[in-house]
């Protein structure tokens, strides 16, 4: 499991490779907060290479979304597979996040 962060225009794109779970969520949180601290405001997390997400992973996304909004920014999500979509629907987090089917669409509409 790892996170790749790159900049596309003014958007910080984070790829989550593997699982987003209790063992690595703090790393994701810190890396995004570091970018926020540097002045970045638009964040997109791409889940195309993600396996599963546990409740602590979901919790980190909620926490990051709140912190980014407090700084006038936005966190969006892309490329959730059907299982991950179900997870977001079960927890109603699909109502909290703007979720795009593809990274390209998310980048276009940000």
């Amino acid at each position, binding site marked *: *499991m790892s996170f790749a962060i790159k900049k596309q225009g003014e958007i910080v794109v984070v790829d989550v490779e593997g699982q987003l779970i209790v063992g690595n969520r703090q790393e994701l949180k810190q890396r995004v907060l570091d970018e926020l601290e540097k002045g970045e405001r638009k964040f997109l997390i791409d889940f195309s290479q993600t*396996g*599963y997400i546990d*409740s602590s992973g979901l*919790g980190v996304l*909620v926490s990051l979304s709140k912190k980014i909004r407090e700084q006038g920014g936005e966190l969006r999500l892309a490329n959730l597979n059907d*299982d991950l979509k179900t997870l977001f629907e079960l927890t109603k987090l699909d109502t909290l996040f703007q979720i795009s089917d593809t990274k390209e669409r998310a980048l276009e509409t940000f």
Partner: protein
Amino acid sequence: MSAISAAQPFAPGRVHIALELEIPSDVRYIERVVEVVKQQCAQFAYPQRQCCLNIPVALSEALSNAILRGNGDRIDAHVQVKIDVTQERLILEVLDEGGGFDFEECLTDPTEPGNIEREDGRGLFLMTRLMDRIERFSNQGNVVRMTLRRHD
């Protein structure tokens, strides 16, 4: 994500797998335990949805609870996992060395408007939604037993 391969699934009713694992009380072991269970279920060609969503998420939650809540700061403690799988159902037992907690009392609904932006409070909820049955009891430790019937 590892591929689920089961070119020759076991014949219904003829094979029963029972395994026991013991891991240190460390969240870094969770993924490996999940992989072991997924592999056993793949032997019976369990549906992709159950192998990639229900089982990994519910088991991760149970293991996290055992390690972080049950055993807490006791780094010398262990967590035992019992896996019992047949063609029809999977039973998982996760045992920690803690004092246990009241599942119902700790269970909240994270989908309520006041809870939706909370960082915590989704673990037990997900276990109840992703498994068919959750039981807690004590047996020289604190045990959570989860049952998942195969849903094709």
